[in-house]
């Protein structure tokens, strides 16, 4: 896959992240994976609406 594709993918990722509400004071440390689980729901929901790759 070309780095151009990754640049485009990254640009879309940054857009999606910018539109996501900031988590409210929720902390996560190097030994907890779970506390960021909910952060991604908005991005997943938006991606399901726009992603036509057939994923999910």
């Amino acid at each position, binding site marked *: 896959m070309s780095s151009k594709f990754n640049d485009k993918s990254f640009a879309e990722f940054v857009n999606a992240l910018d539109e996501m509400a900031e988590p409210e004071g929720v902390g996560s440390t190097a030994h907890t994976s779970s506390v*960021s689980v909910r952060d991604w729901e908005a991005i997943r929901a938006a991606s399901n609406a726009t992603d036509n790759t057939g994923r999910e």
Partner: protein
Amino acid sequence: MGPLLVILKLAGQQCNLDCLYCYERRKPAGRGHLDPAVLQDFLTRIEGTPIRALLHGGEPLLVTRHRMSELLDILNGYSALEGIAIQTNGTLLDEEWVRLLNDAAKDIEWGISYDGTAGLSEFRQTYRGDSSWADTARGIQVLEDMGMPYGLITVVTRAHLTAGSARRLADSVEAFTQMRSLKLVPCFDGPATAANQLRTVSGERQRNLLRPQANPLWSVEPHEFARFVDEFQSEWLEREAWRRYRLDPITSLVENLRGRRSAYSDFNDNSDADVVTLYPDGTIAANDRANEVVSGEVSLAEVADIRAYIEDIRESMRSEWLRDYADVCSSCEVYDGCRGSELFTRRQMRLSGREDAFCDSRKEMVGKIRGLLDRSAKVQAAGRERMGQ
């Protein structure tokens, strides 16, 4: 400041696995499981302080289901509880556990420790020295089948440094449709790593891989971790996997560089100061890291005012930061992305003579993300031009 993260060592250091790099396993042996009365005493004495509880270990699912229910009842009765999370190796997970925890801990957040399939999990082993990844994958499948969202932590070890490892790890999580986050964490065990005292195959293997005055053979150097993160990030972007799960440290770096504030302590100004750990024997500590760098462990019985103890620890960590690290970081060109890491990590790297290498690797990671951000700005500008805006 957010809620205090309370790490509850439900089974102390006890675990059904004996991973070579596990810091918990290197602590002085402790017996027993967390007594509900100890938890109640702790919570009564911090009444009113907002907390998030993390069920941790050793392996937290080693406690009986009855004890787990009692502990969750006590947590649910705490007035300022803001959430419950669990970090487990997944090998003991079954539908009954998932139902019990979901019913008793509303909106519990699931975290699984997973290093990848086959050779990638070489250092996550049973007492007999066997790889444990298949049992963890089975536990993950239970969450998948029940439609439960979860996050993964992958400890990056020497097993991840062979060619194609990032692709193999990315391949192995492709089928995990309920996964919401993947956190890559470096194994920076240094020359002071303590020997496992167990007379088991796993203990002997750990001792055989220790080297005098050198890093253990399972640990990675900072630049090796940065390289793996870069390789995995390429896989993540190529597969557009960001549509499905968050990847750290990449997302934290982007958040910081975009003016958002990462909540991950490794990339956050607040460092690891908002953490307190409770052990089954009533010991509390600021964080739960390796016994090679103990941070303020004290018995609950000797503490008159737990909130004052926590504030003292925070103040002491702030002072240490200002005294030993603030000058280096304030003049650093990548501080806006890096945020200095955790005090624990900085201390560990300085004590083992790897501080410069560590900072260089952070510069490399921030530099790569800055490069991507610059190029993505150009991609967006070109897109706007095409649209005639």
